[in-house]
Structure formats: structure tokens, C-alpha cells
């Protein structure tokens, strides 16, 4: 099971975490990965100045746009899934 955790605190919310979560929800569904990728929220990662912040499993990413989230989803989730 892979886990994507998106921060939904005040600063990250302003920097678009809401859209990023929506994107992941759709992307996971489109790829039919509901049973393999879990999407979670968290309130604060103590990195507010660099948000929006998200974790893919244990790895931290600072994401400025939905496009960046898309890239992460493709490389971290879709490609790695194919490799296995």
C-alpha cells in the first residue's frame, strides 16, 4: 500500500492543497488504484513556508501547483507501479 499525505493547514490550503487533493482523488480513481494508494490529510508538517507540502510514503515534497503534483503522481506512483 502506498500512502500520499497532503497537508491541509492554513498556509498549504492557500497554496492550493485543496486542488491538489482533488487532483489525487481523481487520478487514483482514473488509474483504478483505490486499493493500492491511500490518500490522507494532515494538519501541519512544520514546513509552512515551503508549502504546499505532501508526503509520498515517507518522502517529503513541496508542491507549488497541480502540475507538479501530477508529475509526482506519474513518476512516484504510476511508473514505480509498472516497475514492480
Amino acid at each position, binding site marked *: 500500500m502506498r500512502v500520499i499525505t497532503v*497537508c*491541509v*493547514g*492554513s*498556509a498549504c*490550503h*492557500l497554496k492550493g*492543497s*485543496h486542488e491538489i*487533493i482533488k487532483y489525487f482523488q481523481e487520478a487514483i480513481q482514473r488509474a483504478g488504484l483505490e486499493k493500492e494508494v491511500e*490518500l*490522507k*490529510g*494532515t*494538519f*501541519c508538517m*512544520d514546513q*509552512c*513556508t515551503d*508549502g504546499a507540502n505532501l508526503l509520498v510514503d515517507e518522502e517529503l515534497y513541496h508542491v507549488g501547483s497541480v502540475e507538479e503534483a501530477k508529475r509526482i503522481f506519474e513518476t512516484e506512483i504510476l511508473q514505480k507501479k509498472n516497475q514492480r
Partner: protein
Amino acid sequence: MSEQLFIESGGANISKYGEILCGDSLSVAPIEGGKIMVLSDGLGSGVKANILATLTTKIATRLMERGLPLEEVVDTLSDTLPECKVRKIAYSTFTLLKVQDDGRVYLAEFDNPPTFFLKRGYVSELHYKERVYGTRKIREAHVHVDAGDWLVTVSDGEIHAGIGGLLNLGWDWEKIAKFLETQVYEDASAQKVAQVLVNQANDLYENRPGDDTTAGVLKIRPKRFATFMIGPPVNKGEDREVVHRFLDQPGRRIVSGGTTAGIVGKTVEKDVIVDLSSMTDKIPPTGKLDGVDLVTEGVHTVNHCLEILQTVNDIDALVGERDGASRLAWEFLYADSISILLGQAINPAHLNPNLPQEMGFKSRSVQAIANLLKERGKEVTLEIH
């Protein structure tokens, strides 16, 4: 001391068919350690009755607030009310109810229907004593109330509802008593019961009330406490102490702000679980944490909550809403006594000049909420760390 009582009040009225003004007047006022309710039915109907009734409730309320004995209240009323030209009397009926936080109730009635006293869901008898002041016979009663009891006072428009129409002799006291027993369940608000009584009378009058009709309701229930923690203390060293105090408070506990929730979570050694399904386009999702009733994000949720409170007064309008701001507003409206622990540590991310200005307005919004709740008659304490 056992649990603290709270006296919740509600009132509703309809005017006699064809009249714009109601000739009954209902007034509720907080006094030191309790509440008073005064219901008056002015002579006749329309503007004259309205003036008489309003004067009566206002004078009686003011005097009782100052703790004057009933005798003087009655004297003052008969001395000051203007005389009706047609009937040559200065007249209006009244019911005075004084309920104290320790459960003591003083009741005085003059020419109004007897007050309904409901104990454990059933109408219970009040033991009146009659006293004569001049030409007036006044019924007085002392009674003790507990949580779960109700006091309901109505004008005779309720008692006569449907007279000569749907009901030969009107709704009558005994029937209203039976009806009330089906309405005063624990979750019903005082306002709702008052509204139901008046609506029922209006139905019996077939929407053409033959008299001004008013219901005043007092619901005695345990006082509801809520503690709201938002923002970490400026001094990190105070974190633990503030969190422990927060967790020791009675009643419902609410935390706003990601960092703040994190501090509380760390202290209780539990993780904050975010409930993504509660997210809306504008409001970040809520969270769950053991020992805390509601966890929300900070500044956006609070700003929206303030907007909601500015327009919504009826708590029922918020039932079923799942977003953080509506739930926070619900908590504030539900509680009688709210203590706010406002931490003013600054999140460096919020100082970013590219962010909207309102990010810095968290303290201001919290204070605006506190003031709004005070205006609505709630006890509010605000503590800044």
C-alpha cells in the same frame, strides 16, 4: 455544588387577526444569578393593548432587575399605567417569573392563565397562595426546579384557541397541558416549544386568531460549557501547561489550527486524523483527536465561522453541515459558557507578503467572535497566551 443549571428561554406570539401589533408583550432579562420572564396581556387589542402590555413588562422587568419586592412592582404598575378612556381602568395582566441559577423559582400571576410547570415530562401542580393588593388578587408560588424541568406561560389567546370554531370551548388549559407533555423532550429548544404552541393555536384558530396569542418558555437544563483553543502560546515553554488546562475543562473541547492540534496531539500521544470527506472548496477539512470534540484548521475556518455567526442565529440551520466552519459555529451556538484560549505565536509562513492579508487577522476574528457571542447573551472568557 452539583451541576450548574442554565435557564434557556424562548418566546413566540401572533396578533389577533387583522391587527399589526400584538397586544401581548413578553420580556426576558438576565439578572445576577438568574433570569426573569414577564408576560403581559394588555387591555383590548392593537396599538393601545400593545402599549399597555409593553409598559407592564418593561416596568416589571426593570423593577425586578433591581430586586424590588413584588408589592412595590404591583403598586408601581397600577400607579403608572395609563387609564383606558372607555373602561376607566388602568389594566393589563401579568405573569412574573424569576428563576435563579440554584433552581429557586418565584412566580406571581395576575389574571393570566396559570403557568405550566413540567417536571420529568409531566405537568405538575403549583401550590399557589393568594394575596390581595388593593383591588387585585395575585397568585404567588415558590417552587424548586431541576435540570429537565420546564416553565411555560401563555396568554389567554392560547387557552381560547379555536373557541366557537374548531373547538366549542377553546383549547383549554388541561388540553394544552397534555399537549405540552408530548413536546418537552430533552432535545427540544425553549424557542421551538414556544413556536409549536403558538403555531398550534394558530391552526386551531384556522389562521384567524381571535385574540393576541403568546407563549413564553423557560427550559431548565445543565449548563453547557465549551473550551476553544486556537493558536500556540507565544512562549513555547507554556505549551504543555496550556494544553493540560484545556484538557481539564468541563464540556466540549475544540481545537483550531494545524500547529495547535499538533501540540495537543503530542501531549496526549495521539495522532490527529484528518477527515478529507469534510473538505469543501473554501474550507479545509476537519480532524479527529481523542479527547477533543472537534479539530479544525485555523485562520480560514475561523474567518468563515465569523461570517456564519454574523448571519445565522438559529442553531438548527447548522445541523447536518459537515464543514469545519459550520461545525465550529454550531459549537459556539450550542454552548452557554465559552472559554477561549488564544495563543498568539506567529506562524512565519503567514507573514509571507504574497499571501492574502486576512491571514494575519486570526486574533482579530477570534475577538470578533467572542464579542458576537457576548452580545447573544453567552458567557465568554478570552485568555491570551
